[in-house]
């Protein structure tokens, strides 16, 4: 997939409201290989945007296209393949499984495509400073630690676009920097586009473009 286009898109709940946005009701294109920042205030529909693009919600006006194809036309198996092969999302609410350990949470995703080796995954654990937590239940880890696990999970798949929704809200600057490094290494290796959202603190990256939501 080479580009994601938004055409006059607007969450249904914003209909009839005065909207000042560089995303909503605009024609926006995200290109593969570029890095974007979407800055938002609370309640401006940042998570909604992520939900629309990952195919989880459809309560929007206007259209969203992947390579020119309206994503409302995608079938169930299209979406399954997109989520497995093309588009990776780090959810703001993480969506990890608290019953499983950190490593099991990675395995359950990596097992779909076997994209990364155990060695590569362990190296990331190491660099993010949670190597000792790999066998700990997610439910017993702090949110900051969970965010790092969720980032690893977002990276263990092939993708053309990586969306990260507030990835560093609970991380210190050092860990944020390491996470950004790992993310960009993997994105560049795959030649992927990156879309970062933030409501304040954001990763310091060479952004192609910044949007005010």
């Amino acid at each position: 997939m080479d580009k994601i286009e938004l055409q006059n898109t607007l969450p249904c709940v914003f209909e009839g409201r005065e909207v000042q946005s560089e995303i909503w009701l605009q024609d926006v294109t995200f290109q593969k290989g570029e890095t974007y920042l979407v800055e938002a205030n609370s309640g401006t529909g940042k998570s909604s945007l992520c939900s629309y693009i990952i195919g989880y919600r459809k309560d929007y006006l206007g259209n969203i296209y992947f390579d020119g194809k309206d994503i409302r036309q995608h079938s169930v198996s299209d979406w399954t393949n997109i989520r497995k092969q093309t588009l990776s999302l780090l959810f703001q609410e993480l969506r990890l499984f608290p019953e499983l350990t950190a490593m099991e949470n990675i395995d359950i995703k990596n097992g779909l495509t076997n994209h990364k080796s155990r060695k590569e995954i362990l190296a990331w654990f190491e660099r993010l400073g949670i190597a000792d937590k790999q066998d700990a239940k997610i439910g017993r880890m702090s949110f900051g630690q969970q965010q790092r696990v969720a980032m690893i999970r977002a990276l263990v798949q092939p993708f053309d676009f990586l969306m990260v929704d507030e990835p560093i809200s609970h991380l210190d600057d050092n860990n944020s920097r390491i996470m950004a490094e790992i993310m960009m290494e993997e994105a560049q290796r795959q030649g992927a586009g990156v879309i970062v959202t933030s409501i304040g603190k954001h990763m310091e990256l060479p952004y192609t473009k910044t949007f005010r939501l």
Partner: protein
Amino acid sequence: MMSLVWKLLRQHISIAQLAGFFFANLFGMFIVLLGLQFYNDVKPLFSQEDGFLKPEYLIVSKRISGVSVLGSEESCGFSDREVADISSQPFCKSVGAFTASQYRVVCSMGVNGVAQFGTDMFFESVPDRFVDTELSNWTFSPEDGTIPIILPRTYLAIYNFGFAQSQSLPKMSEGIVGMIDMLVVLRGNGQEQRLKGKIIGFSSRLNTILVPESFIQWSNAKFAPEADLTPNRLIVEVKNPTDDAIVQYINEHNLELEDDKLDAGKATYFLRIVTVLVMCVGMLISILSFYILMLSIYLLVQKNTEKLRNLLLIGYSPVRVSLPYQILTVGMNGVVLLLSLLILYVVRSYYMDRLWVMFPQMQDGSLWPALCLGLCLFLIVSTINIVAVRNRVMKIWNRKE
């Protein structure tokens, strides 16, 4: 990786609910299968087809009243005119007469050459075309000296329950009557001859000891050449045994129809009603247990909605996340089917042993009817389960949960 998915999705499984389903369904399934199997096993006892007489053959005799016994002898037999009248009726295809032996017959029977008991008796014959057996078995020649015999089935019962029991003789099934040695002594007209008898089968519709017509003709000519051969009974082949005209004719001419089918018919009818009732109860239990299972699965999916949704969002297909619950339900259905068949097998061999003691002529039958019904139920229920789980997961996909 499937085991990780299972590790996630087995959360909130209620062992108690599933056990409840399991035993209820096992019970219900077993009752349904038992009902059908028992019906199939027992039915032949009630509606045993008579191998030697087709259903279109009716046996007609004159009604015996006190007057006719004391009155002239010929009123008990059929005159030529009466036979001709019957054969001219529109319902009638052909008529044959019973011809009785007119001399003395003494018969002794034994097993393995040891004579057990002897009795006076008689023979009758009908024209060979009315006897439905292989003609090579149903012939007699004086040189050969063996008489094929068809006995009433009641004789076997009398032997098995009356005689054999009190004399501690072995019970006999229809299959092994060939082992009986029968010595027949014919006397009359100043002559005596010893012949061998061979029981070739039993009939529940004939109240007589039937032998081939050729034997009766030969023996009557030899031992009672002057005897009167007026038939007492006729065998009538009709076009349709349920024709009302037959009953009407029989009543008008003061005749009697030998009919043993009526009682068996009634018994079969009640048997069918009881079976249907029992199977309905079993079915009801099964349906209720199926309902428990569906509720249990719905509850499980409900409680695990968040996990299922997350799996779908990280790239698992609905087919894949449905699979563990589908395997669970289908597996349980399968185990229930196997167990109920196993219990059925045990119970069946128990009641079949009992039935064999009472009805040695009973055939072995098979478990196929229950097996087929069980498989059908399994397939139907499993299909509904699979579709229901899949629908639930699709609801989560479509954010309706």
